[in-house]
């Protein structure tokens, strides 16, 4: 087929020469003769082709034919096709994958009725801007009936031991106010939602109501229908299954619930007042639904009016209380939105860079095919037909690229979901949904239109050029085009790549600093597990103490275990307990008392985690209920509350107690030791002031085991933990048994995920920009063979030629990089405030990132120019001159 085309060219060129010769013989000036001949060959027939097209009915058949022709054309140029489609697929694939995540996390409506009317509510302290606290149950009851809200629901999620159906296990249980399902506008798939009275304990013949997830129902009872009406035991209390939710249902969305119960179990307590009876205990999250016609600001204003009345009625607990509302979706997306949008911007840049490269490929092909266009025009093809053929080829490349990109995106989505850090709500829903497919196809078409445009321009140029010249030169050394805008595009590529790279280096630098953080404890060889002792079977605080004392004794005797302790919470374990702090020797009014984190620990805790004891003593077995109440504090506590004073011997009072005090104030504790700081809630958050109290003096029924295994004996230690707990009480499930190192790692997971993705996109941007620069330089060197030959012939040294090419390429790159840094700085200024929450100890104008990005890019640009420069320098002048 190619053979045939070359024949046609030669034949037509021959014909032209004869025509011209004949006209010249007839006395016409040679250039004019040539022009007339070319005119004869081309123009006269063009309108006939157009007429032919019109007759073929709306050109649909012509399009189909051109698509077939374009497919054949791509098939015949496999190198071009593969490079163009792959480049485009990378760009579209990355964009589609990130967009599918954005769609799932930020855009898709929440799976509840009229989700845009749902709000998330929290309490705040009007003295501290941005403070965010859960509701206390009594506050919630006071606040929930304002006219602008059609309802408010409160919830808290806990791990509870499930017994009575199969093996004991810990399940994720959401305790929700009875109105919750109605407020969300959801119904169980089987059975019914909670009834209004079911927030009271024992409303169903002494049992409480429970609604199961479809997953738990089928795991424990075989089918949803079989679960309905069954009894089960949670935390030692009896429940009655009144409903089963549809498969996949979740509320709240930032957790994975196995079942839902009402507030009822939290209304009972064997020791002291129940959680629901303490106005100062803030532990419930809340959602609300706007009444028809009401707006969120109105609702917030009404809530704060109620809050002001509450502050008067309960000055000790509710002074400075304010209530805030945000759309429910915004609450879930607040943390992830800036990073997702940053990633979307980065992949957008990658796609633009990729499109420039594809446009370059298409253009180079168009240049090679200029004579083919001329030939087709000579054979009577109209300009429109040739343009249509180009458009078809662009369309085909775009569609194939989009399809390959979709395949890549499907793979990337799976990887994304697997690698995703916990806490990115709904990221696991990322898939190629219809809107995502539309976006991918749209990107493909847009790209196609973009890069079909360049050869079209080139074609029009060719038309203005001398047709005969285009034919006679056989297309070989077609006149070099000025390439000015092509160079501009390469600079633009480097500009985008520089911005993406600067952002990626910023995140990487921040990640490096985060990973270098010393957490204040040693997680190596340490295992943690969560144990919940059923309240109903261990009603008294002493029962809890006895259980854990026995367990720790057994564990300490194991050869595989170096030390065993229990604590609540553990560093980076996801829980925090705050208490109100007071100084018995010079008391503060209740509203002025600061709050402080507290941990209850058994004596071996500091040794097990290798937290250094800096002053005083650690807890011992003698620090029991009834003996003097003691506390240990950390350095941050001393810095904040006792600066420049001796901490040992200072007396503090905390609002937390497990034992009833018959109306007496909680006894004061004496500080007996000072320990090192530990990162508690996140690796990137500074170590908070901490008070530690002995577990024997404030017993908890739910504790984390902290077991330091002997090196290499981690598996044996884990088995020992399971068997020791099972041996003591088979109904106490061992939950979350995992290495502590995994928790430390999990704490940096979001940062690693973000920087990994951004680094990946930056690498892609770099690679594509380098390829783009290489292509332009290679083409430029090839077109200037003659010029370079002349220079060498006139005595230019090889080094000078290399330098000339390098300088040209680097200038192009440097212009782009400079603009890119400006762009990055503008972006930092614009989105910096929202992104900086994701950075650790790193400014958005990080000098390291802003210095490293241009250096890296320049090095890359030099690398991309090196090969063309070498080729230019090694050109044989005689040969390059003869070629022309």
């Amino acid at each position, binding site marked *: 087929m190619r053979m045939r085309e070359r*024949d*046609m060219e*030669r*034949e*037509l060129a*021959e*014909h032209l*020469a*004869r*025509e011209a010769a004949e006209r010249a013989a007839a006395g016409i000036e040679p250039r004019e003769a040539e022009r007339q001949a070319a005119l*004869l*060959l*081309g123009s*006269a*027939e*063009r*309108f*006939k082709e*157009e*007429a*032919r097209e*019109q*007759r073929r009915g709306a050109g649909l058949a012509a399009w189909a034919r051109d698509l077939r022709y374009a497919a054949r054309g791509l098939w015949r140029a496999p190198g071009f096709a593969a490079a163009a489609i792959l480049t485009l697929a990378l760009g579209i694939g990355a964009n589609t994958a990130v967009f599918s995540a954005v769609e799932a996390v930020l855009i898709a409506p929440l799976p509840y009725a009229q989700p845009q009317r749902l709000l998330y509510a929290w309490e705040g302290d009007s003295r501290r801007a941005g403070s965010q606290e859960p509701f206390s149950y009594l506050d919630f009851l006071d606040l929930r009936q304002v006219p602008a809200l059609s309802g408010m629901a409160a919830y808290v999620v806990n791990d509870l031991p499930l017994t009575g159906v199969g093996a004991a296990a810990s399940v994720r249980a959401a305790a929700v106010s009875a109105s919750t399902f109605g407020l969300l506008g959801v119904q169980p798939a089987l059975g019914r939602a909670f009834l209004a009275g079911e927030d009271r304990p024992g409303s169903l013949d002494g049992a409480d109501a429970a609604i199961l997830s479809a997953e738990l129902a089928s795991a424990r009872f075989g089918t949803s229908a079989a679960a309905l009406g069954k009894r089960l035991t949670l935390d030692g209390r009896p429940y009655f299954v009144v409903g089963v939710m549809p498969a996949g249902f979740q509320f709240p969305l930032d957790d994975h619930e196995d079942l839902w119960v009402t507030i009822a179990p939290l209304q009972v307590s064997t020791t002291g007042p129940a959680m629901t009876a303490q106005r100062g205990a803030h532990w419930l999250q809340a959602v609300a639904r706007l009444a028809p016609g009401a707006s969120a600001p109105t609702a917030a204003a009404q809530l704060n009016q109620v809050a002001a009345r509450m502050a008067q009625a309960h000055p000790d607990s509710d002074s400075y209380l304010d209530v805030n509302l945000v759309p429910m979706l915004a609450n879930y997306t607040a943390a992830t939105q800036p990073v997702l949008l940053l990633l979307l911007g980065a992949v957008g840049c990658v796609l633009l860079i990729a499109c420039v490269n594809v446009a370059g490929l298409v253009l180079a092909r168009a240049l090679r095919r200029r004579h083919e266009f001329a030939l087709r025009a*000579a*054979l*009577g093809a109209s300009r429109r037909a040739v343009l249509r053929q180009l458009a078809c080829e662009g369309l085909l490349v775009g569609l194939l690229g989009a399809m390959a990109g979709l395949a890549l995106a499907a793979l990337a989505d799976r990887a994304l979901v697997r690698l995703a850090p916990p806490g990115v709500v709904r990221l696991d829903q990322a898939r190629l949904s219809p809107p995502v497919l539309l976006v991918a196809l749209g990107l493909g078409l847009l790209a196609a239109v973009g890069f079909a445009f360049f050869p079209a321009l080139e074609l029009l140029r060719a038309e203005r050029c001398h047709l005969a010249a285009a034919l006679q030169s056989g297309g070989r050394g077609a006149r070099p085009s000025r390439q000015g805008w092509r160079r501009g595009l390469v600079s633009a590529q480097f500009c985008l790549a520089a911005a993406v790279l600067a952002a990626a280096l910023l995140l990487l630098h921040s990640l490096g600093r985060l990973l270098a953080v010393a957490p204040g404890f040693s997680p190596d060889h340490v295992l943690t597990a969560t144990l919940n002792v059923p309240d109903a079977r261990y009603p008294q605080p002493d029962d809890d103490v006895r259980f854990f004392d026995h367990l720790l004794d057994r564990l300490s005797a194991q050869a595989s275990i170096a030390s065993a302790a229990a604590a609540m919470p553990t560093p980076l374990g996801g829980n925090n307990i705050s208490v109100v702090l007071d100084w018995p020797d010079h008391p503060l009014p209740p509203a002025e008392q600061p709050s402080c984190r507290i941990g209850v620990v058994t004596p071996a805790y500091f040794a097990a985690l290798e937290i250094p004891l800096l002053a005083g003593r650690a807890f011992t077995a003698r620090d029991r209920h009834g003996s003097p109440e003691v506390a240990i504090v950390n350095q941050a506590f001393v810095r904040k509350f006792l600066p420049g004073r001796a901490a040992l011997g200072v007396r503090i009072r905390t609002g937390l107690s497990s034992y009833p005090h018959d109306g007496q104030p909680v006894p004061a504790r004496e500080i007996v030791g000072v320990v090192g700081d530990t990162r508690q809630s996140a690796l990137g958050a500074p170590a908070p002031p901490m008070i530690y109290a002995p577990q024997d003096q404030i017993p908890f029924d739910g504790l984390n085991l902290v077991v330091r295994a002997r090196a290499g004996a981690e598996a044996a230690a884990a088995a020992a933990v399971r068997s020791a707990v099972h041996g003591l009480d088979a109904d106490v499930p061992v939950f979350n048994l995992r290495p502590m190192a995994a928790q430390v790692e999990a704490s940096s997971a979001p940062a690693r995920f973000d920087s990994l993705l951004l680094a990946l996109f930056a690498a892609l941007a770099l690679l594509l920009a380098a390829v783009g620069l290489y292509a332009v330089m290679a083409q430029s060197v090839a077109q200037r063979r003659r010029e370079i030959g002349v220079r060498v012939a006139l005595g230019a040294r090889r080094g000078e030629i290399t330098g000339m090419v390098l300088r040209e390429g680097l200038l192009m790159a440097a212009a782009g990089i400079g603009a890119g840094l400006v762009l990055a700085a503008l972006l930092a200024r614009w989105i910096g405030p929202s992104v900086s929450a994701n950075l650790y100890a790193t400014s958005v104008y990080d000098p390291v990132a802003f210095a490293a990005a241009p250096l890296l890019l320049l090095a890359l640009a030099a690398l991309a120019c090196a090969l063309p420069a070498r080729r230019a320098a090694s050109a044989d002048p005689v040969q390059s001159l003869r070629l022309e």
Partner: protein
Amino acid sequence: MTICNCRSYSDPHGQTQRSRPGTLDLLILRTLALEPLHGWAIARRIQQLSREVLQVQQGSLYPALYRLERKKWIKGAWRESETGRQARFYSLTASGRGQLEREQQQWRRLSEAINCVVEEA
């Protein structure tokens, strides 16, 4: 008079004219029946034989040549031309000769018929 092989075309005045299909094919086949010729010479020969009445547009000639070649009625081959340059010479194949016979008969019948009408009227 301009010969083209298209089945219809818009003339500059926007009117669509029908011309008999195959006229150009017949002319080419007939020309090649005498001796192998290259494209330019075919156009020339038609022009000469028609005493400068028929002018073949190159934009029609080459597509027609390629079509006839595809139908295996003529065969192209590169040879040195009278000017010493390489040119593609077309010659009639055996099936081309058969086709020429058929087209000539058809043409004779048609022109006789037209003559009858035109002369009588």
